[in-house]
């Protein structure tokens, strides 16, 4: 119900023309990393709408209004555990794809991220942009997302 309301609200605000634009939220406390990551994402998909949040407290209120399709979530946030936050968001909004960012490319992290419903897992130090590109493409062309939108619009 809640989600439906968010979508109706968003439809009014953005209009139908913006339907295909992918909306992305970056939750990361380290500003330099966040900024460069955002720039690179924008370069990858200029139509993408990107918003940023430095903390969990900043991020959570944005989700209903912004209704992102994709969230990049740092594991370590000053006010929360990113994994737990991801789990919480996923429980309410199963359609949002969440990508967990971490400093350690360890199987324990990977497993923990997947357990909490994350779509993917990226090591901040060693990820590859091709990976992200295919991820974004797969999300924007997702039938479920599209179908969902149209069904809500009609």
């Amino acid at each position, binding site marked *: 119900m809640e989600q439906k309301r968010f979508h109706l609200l968003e439809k009014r605000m953005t209009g139908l023309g913006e339907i295909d634009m992918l909306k992305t939220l970056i939750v990361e406390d380290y500003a330099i990393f966040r900024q460069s990551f955002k720039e690179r994402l924008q370069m990858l998909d200029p139509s993408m709408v990107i918003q940023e949040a430095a903390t969990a407290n900043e991020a959570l209120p944005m989700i209903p209004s912004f209704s992102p399709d994709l969230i990049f979530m740092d*594991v*370590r946030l000053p006010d929360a*555990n990113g*994994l737990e936050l991801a789990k919480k968001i996923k429980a309410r909004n199963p359609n949002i794809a969440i990508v967990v960012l*971490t*400093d*350690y490319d*360890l199987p*324990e*992290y990977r*497993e*923990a991220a997947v357990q909490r419903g994350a779509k993917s897992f990226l090591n901040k*130090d*060693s990820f590859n942009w091709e990976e992200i590109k295919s991820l974004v493409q797969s999300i924007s062309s997702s039938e479920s997302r599209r179908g969902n939108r149209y069904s809500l619009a009609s």
Partner: protein
Amino acid sequence: MIRNVSLKRSLIGCGIAVGVVATAFLLRQLLTGFVGADLPTYLTFYPAVMLVAILAGFGAGLLATGMAALLAAFWILHPQGQFAVTRLSDAVSLAFFSGMGVLISLLVELYRRSRRKSAAYEKELALRESQEDLNRAQAVAHTGSWRLDVRRNELVWSDENHRIFGIPKGTSMTYETFLATVHPEDREYVGQKWTAALRGEPYDIEHRIVTGDGVKWVRERAELEFDPQGVLRGGFGTTQDITERKQAEQAMLRAKQEWERTFDAVPDLIAILDDRHRILRANRAMAQRLGLTPAQCVGMLCHKAVHGLDYPPDFCPHTLTLADGREHVAEVHEDSLGGDFLVSTTPLADEQGRHIASVHVARDLTQHKLREERIARLTKLYAVLSRVNEAIVRVHDEGPLYAEVCRIVAEEGEFPLVWIGQVKERKVAPAASHGPAADYLKEIRVEVEGELGHGPTGNCIREDRPMINDDFDTNPSTAPWREPALRYGFRASAAFPLHRQGKVVGTLTLYAAEPDAFDTEQVNLLEALCADISYALDAIQQEKFRAEAEQRLRDSEARFRLLSETAGRLLVAQNPQAIVNDLCRDVMTHLDCQVFFNFLADEEADRLHLNACAGIPAEETRKIEWLDYGVGVSGCVARDGVRIIAEEIANPPDPRTELVKSYGIQAYACHPLMVQGRVIGTLSFGTKTRPNFTPGELALMRTVTDQVAAAMERMTLIRELQRSRDELETRVQERTAELGRINEALRHLSSRILSAQEDERKRIAGELHDTIGACLSAIKFKVENVLPQIGKTPKAATESLKTILPVIQEGVEDCRRIQMDLRPPMLDDLGLQATLSWFCRRFQMIYSEIQVDQEIKMEEDGVPSPLKIVAYRITQEAMNNIAKHSKADRVRLSIRKVNRRMELTIQDNGQGFNPKKALALESTRGGLGFSSMRERVNLSGGSLDIESAEGKGTIIRASWPL
């Protein structure tokens, strides 16, 4: 009715008037021939008027006058019969004639009236007189009367009636007024009777009334009249004042009753006999003696009723009195009446002096005779009592006193046997006896209880009161002794308790040849006698006590002196054991003992050691130097802690006293030396001169023993105090040393912590220098090299920059690794399980020869956050130890929840170690860091347990409450 009467009378008057006037007129007419017609008319009619007035009164006179006037006017003045008063003279004459007639009538009437009045007065006078006569008569007869007229509603009382009832004349009388004066107790009766009288029954009653003069008795009689319908019309009654008669009657009754009471009260048997020996009257005593009531006696023949004879007996004094009319006396024995009587007969004469009866008085002499006998016996007993009292004063010993008492009572009291029995356990043993039948006691036994204890003597002792056996022949409780008692000629017996200090100690038992020999007074006297004997016994005893008390006082003074000396010596003695010898010798002498032994317990030898002794040869002393517990008297006392007193040792064989008996000891007492409930030895004394100790001697021994024990206890306490002070000292020293050690360990620990901290810093510094520092230096060098190339050869510069990236990556990884080593962020990001899993994986990678098994059976959420780092550090430390020291090839790591505790176990199959030695080693230096592990666990509220043995592997188990 009343009107009818006057009418009748008027008619009669009219008739008379008409008749007389007519007669007078006729007479005149008849007489006219003789006297002529000129006869004046008044001569004709005045007498007639007068006669009529006399006969029928004034009214008739007037009528007669009127008629005469008419006749005169019609017939006499004018014989033609017509009214012709024509002349005035005629009219005047007629008027005068009429007036005279009226006057005559009037006069006659006046006369009649006066006559009538005087007649009524006469009658009334007569009535009054008769009334007064009646009143006087009533007053004299004390009889009043009353009359009731229901129609007139009138109750009239005579004067006497008023006087009797004390109600003033003139009071309006009703039945209620009368009833109010009736005595309250009689009111109901009077009411009933009056009600009955109203029903027609005769009313003649006697009852009391209450008047101002007090209570009176009256007799009331009444006759009531009723109309044919039975309704009360009225009545007449009389009231007779019968108070005096009644009082006289009552006085007479009282006198009669008094006389009868007196007659009946006389204890002598009195009968009034007529000349044919018939009983006219008998008093109660007489009747009772005959078993009859006085009324039943009346009419019986005296000789039949009293003596059972059909004719008067020879000695009958009444026969003599009848013969000579004088008083006669005879002494008569009559068994059927139970004894001897003194009989007197006194003649009774009638008014003419004829002898018609006798007063027959029989006085019972039986009691009198018995009393005489009793007095004789009592006198004898008084003599006995006084002789016994003399003996009491004279004799001061129990045995002789008993013998003397028995002798006196038997001889003076003339009893066949008298004996005094003493209570000895269950038996009553004769202490003294006297009398011709004294052998009887050899044949019988008396006890306090049982079959032989329920005779007079036994009962007397048990119940502490005199017991009288009235007849051996019939008393069932004397059955066990009946045959011998009767054989010895006893019929009665009595037993009296003898007391000493208020307690029954024996009896005085007496026997008599006659049944019922002991009467109350004798018993009282014998009781008094026994009280005197008891008093004497008390006096003898008291004298004995006094002498004993004096002796005891002397003894106890000596004992006190001895004890105080002993106590003083013991108190100053440093070693009481040493002075026991001297001390016991003094006590021994005082107690008239010849032997003493003092054994002391030797704890190490678990035997008794002879400390001091006296009175036996030296070689004997050596024999008993050591004594086992339970052997001999002292051994038993030491074993049981209870004193043993052996007296009359010569008699009963007892294995314990064999030894002392062999020394010729007759009495022996051994007391334990008790200190705080523990036996520390024994002290015993023995005498060869007598078979018993007195309680005082035993008490002294006991006191000396206690004093010695107390002195020894004091020494023991002093030694114990010394020892405990020393112990305390040692413990303080030990504690101080321990504290020093702990302090040292603490110092060592903190220095170890400090050095560990320094080592860690040194290691981190070195690592930072070697890794990140080196990396950054290399980057800086490379960037500096690239910078000048950027403008000139951009392509080469780009390539050069690319080569920097791996270096940076290396630096980043180094940084991550260092961070992981310092504190794995994973613990906070992912939790304990993931971290341990990561740690084990890495451990496995490094130490591939050691196989690691993980067993984690706990939810991540169940682990309290503060414990996560502790558990991780313990695991890290333990695993590092295993890798470094254990030579194990298998490690098992487990985290479980056990009994509300979290339990972390790291187990290896390595060479193991001795945990004690390892910890001891650690507290000084080196070691495996167990103490820091333990410290960590303890600080976080858990406990650490290390199980290991050389060659047996190691289990480290840390657990925390949840």
